[in-house]
């Protein structure tokens, strides 16, 4: 039997735009994404009344980027964290991103991971059941990354629900995910992720 998320038809579409300093733009990706099982977990907490009593805790309010996608096991709906999520410092001290480090729900365990908060002004309802998230990695963010002395390129991104369990200290959960071709981020350009979820 298919589950609620599948049959409701929740799906997403991600467009990645590279914006250069001179204002020119280049579309790097324009493809569907994966809704992962965290969406169903979060909604289960909501509909059973077992999680947070504040509806804001069920909102998607943060995102992560990583450098190790796709996951070794392939891109499936069971993914609960990025393969190589950036550390807090890797997001860049001079960027406009507000980084929040929390214990993230990763299956039956918790993993301390940073995520960039999405300003509410960047969350737009574009239809009766469609919401668009505009995520900006500015020129000062995520630049010239290295891991173990090797170049590390951005190639995965995920968005997270804030705190469905209602824990006193927010415990986010990954709800959608997408890998893409390596992007060597430098200060010459910013990246704009236009992520549309259709519920």
């Amino acid at each position, binding site marked *: *039997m*298919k*589950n*609620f*998320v*599948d*049959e*409701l*038809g*929740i799906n997403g579409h991600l467009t990645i735009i590279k914006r250069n300093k001179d204002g020119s733009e280049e579309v790097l990706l324009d493809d569907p994404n994966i809704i992962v*099982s965290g969406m*169903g*977990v979060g*909604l*289960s*907490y*909501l*509909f*059973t*009344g*077992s*999680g*947070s*009593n*504040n*509806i*804001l*805790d*069920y*909102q*998607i309010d943060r995102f992560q980027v990583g450098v190790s996608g796709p996951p070794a096991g392939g891109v499936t709906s069971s993914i609960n964290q990025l393969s190589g999520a950036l550390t807090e410092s890797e997001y860049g001290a001079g960027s406009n991103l507000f980084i929040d480090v929390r214990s993230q729900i990763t299956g039956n365990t918790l993993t301390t991971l940073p995520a960039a908060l999405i300003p*509410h002004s960047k*969350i*737009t*309802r574009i*239809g*009766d*059941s*469609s*919401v668009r998230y505009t995520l900006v990695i500015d020129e000062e963010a995520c630049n010239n990354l290295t891991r173990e002395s090797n170049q590390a390129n951005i190639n995965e991104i995920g968005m997270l629900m804030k705190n469905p369990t209602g824990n006193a200290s927010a415990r986010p959960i990954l709800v959608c995910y997408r890998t893409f071709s390596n992007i060597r981020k430098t200060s010459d350009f910013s990246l704009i992720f236009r992520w549309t*979820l*259709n*519920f």
Partner: protein
Amino acid sequence: MKGEVEIWSGDELVFKQPNMIVDGAGELLADIMTVSPSLSSIQNTATSAILDASNYRIQAISFGTGKDAYNQNAHSFDATKELLAGYYASLISTKGVVPVVTFISSIENYSNSDGTLVIPPKVGIPIYPDPTLEVLEPNIQMSAIVGGYYVSSVFPPNGQLTNFMPSAIYTEMVKNTVFSSTTSAVAIAGILGCFPDSSSTIKFSSGDRFSKDYIRRESSESTPYLQAAGIPVVGGFFNAASSMDVSGFVNLIMSSTPNSTYLMSGTSSGLCMSANTSFSSNGIIEYSVSLASGDVGFANMYGGIYHLGLWTIDMQKSLQNGNTPPFAFRQLNNPRKYKLFCRKGLTKNLGFIEGSNADYNNRDLLIKWRLRFL
């Protein structure tokens, strides 16, 4: 399949099919994702109550039938009946009951002569499964006229079986309307139906009318149902528990969560929600409600039950109607306006009875509706 509906009669599973999630579910999720966080900073109880997660959960179930049913069966009312309207008044004054009148001509295949409620109602073809539906049955028109006025001009159909029969409801609903006289009020209650009061309701008997039986609740009956012979006994769960509002929405009254040590309320008291302790890994949530034999039998006289719907609160409509959260459920003037979340269309009337003549009885039914989130 986004979920499944099971209907039980005692230990017998009489129905099991997948349901349909409608567009309202997607709209609800989009609502959730775009609620402004700035509301939390406003120091006002009503405003902050908008953020209460209970406003965004499934809160009600309702029942419906095909649109043609609303012009026939016990929904019909014509001059012949109106001539007998005085009898309505006498019934209400002497017996305290609302008559339910069904003409033989409105019954498809009535053949049982012993006055039982074996009614294959006329319903036409109920609406086909459509995820864009916002009500259980759209485009209902009622032609019933009482006292020279169209009933629908004051009480427009809302797409489902309504709950006007309890005296506490219909006497309030007709106040300051053209139907405020006792006779008209009782006629309105009898036309709009559809679920028996907790005390008693009587079915009219005269000439070519359908039955010669009185239907009433007998408190001595531990398992009341409509009987083929003698005095049929009927009672309704919904109005005994005051769990259904005038529009026909049965309220969510209790759940086994968030605290698993809570006792489940009886499903005869309203819509119940339950989930086991593994809900976050199996994602299964069950909604259950019981219909008394009287609820089924009466609904059958108003066209039967071909549609079921689970509803969430429509925050925008509730606010636009001038209501202030938190929205407490009320039978009359319910501040909760609802948004259809998922529905189930039945190919067979829930009030359908089959069996030997001696067994022509409606039974209590238990509806179990499971949603799977994982």
